[in-house]
């Protein structure tokens, strides 16, 4: 994470507007994400949280308004955004026939070079010790979620965009993830996260979609 841009606005939205099927999901949405912020997006079911997160990653371009990345229009800088982004959606991105280790080797390896020990260490941290070499279809729902979350430990990315990462995690997993989020923020990262449960973090910003 480059040191010189310390206090800049990482990601800023101005007058975002989005509708689907003639239902306006949000309009005049403004927010600024600084380094060190965890932004929790709240809202009832169907209020557009997932849609918003996908917009931020460039996985959805059916919106109007202005998005800037370090104060520059985001359209021209998707490459930059992608190289400092981790996204986790409703689908976890874990191949069922590969083992957790092999899954991470690829999904992390797409952007960062890692060695095997790091991967095994990260899996251990996420409570998957002993499961490194089981194929993922034998893992429970929560364990697959944990495989996907291990990426957070291996990529040194600035921006985390996490869509309901707490589902299917048990209490201990929830605590672990909360700790990770606040650590990331403390190190100057930015986190967007949607969840329906109360997050207990010091540097939390709420963004309510209604």
């Amino acid at each position, binding site marked *: 994470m480059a040191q010189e841009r310390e206090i800049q606005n990482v990601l800023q939205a101005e007058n975002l507007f989005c509708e689907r099927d003639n239902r306006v999901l949000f309009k005049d949405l403004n927010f600024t994400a600084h380094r060190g912020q965890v932004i929790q997006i709240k809202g009832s079911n169907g209020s557009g949280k997932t849609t918003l997160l996908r917009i931020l990653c460039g996985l959805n371009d059916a919106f109007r308004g202005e998005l800037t990345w370090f104060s520059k229009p985001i359209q021209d800088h998707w490459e930059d955004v992608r190289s400092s982004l981790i996204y986790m*959606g409703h689908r976890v991105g874990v191949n069922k026939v590969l083992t957790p280790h092999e899954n991470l080797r*690829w999904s992390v*390896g797409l952007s*960062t070079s890692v060695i095997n020990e790091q991967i095994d260490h990260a899996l251990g941290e996420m409570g998957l010790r002993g499961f490194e070499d089981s194929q993922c279809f034998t893992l429970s729902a929560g364990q697959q979620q944990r495989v996907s979350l291990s990426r957070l430990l291996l990529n040194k990315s600035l921006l985390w965009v996490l869509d309901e990462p707490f589902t299917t995690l048990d209490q201990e997993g929830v605590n672990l993830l909360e700790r990770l989020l606040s650590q990331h923020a403390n190190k100057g990262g930015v986190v967007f996260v949607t969840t329906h449960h109360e997050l207990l973090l010091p540097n939390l910003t709420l963004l309510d979609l209604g």
Partner: protein
Amino acid sequence: MDQVTTIEAFTATLKRDLLVAYKRKNDIFNPFMFFLIVCSLFPIGISPDPARLGEIASGVLWISALLASLLAMDSLYRNDFEDGSLEQLLLSPHPLYFLVLAKNMAHWLVSGLPVVIVSPLVAYMLSLPDDAYWVMFLTLLLGTPILSLLGSIGVALTVGLGSRGLILAVITLPMSVPVLIAGTLTVQEALNGASLSGYMAVLGAMFFGSLTLAPLASATALRISVT
């Protein structure tokens, strides 16, 4: 922990796809079996008479290879789409062109190459005249990668759809007709004793054309399907 180069990302993707295929085994075995079985339906459905079989053999081989390569395509992006890996691929900082190329390459190695290798045996069983074996083999070797590359566009376009299977075929088969024509013509001309360099050049041109253009189209199609 450094950023990786595009080439590293390319090999990582290639390796991963080969690994998935290796673990599933069936991905390698099935296109090949499908090819064998479909080819052996023709003597039963049409005629067991060697003379008549020999006449239709080159067409049958090419059509079966086309269908095998087409139907094997389904597994190219589908699983990745369903488990979310495809989103990760799209969000990687590297040009999608190369990642798509890596996936196509892995896929052809796994599903196309075995078909090409077994084709002389099947050609014998279908009483293809002796002189045409080598030509058959070569046209398939050049032709099946083209079919894979074209098929990849079709799969990419249809990857998010609920109903699958045949929509892919309906989109891709018409695209593949020129390859089929070039392939079977080459074999037939070989049987007539004509010189082949011209025909092979056409196939070669198609090959290089699709190698450069098709992954671009696939990449675009993937972005459209996933967003």
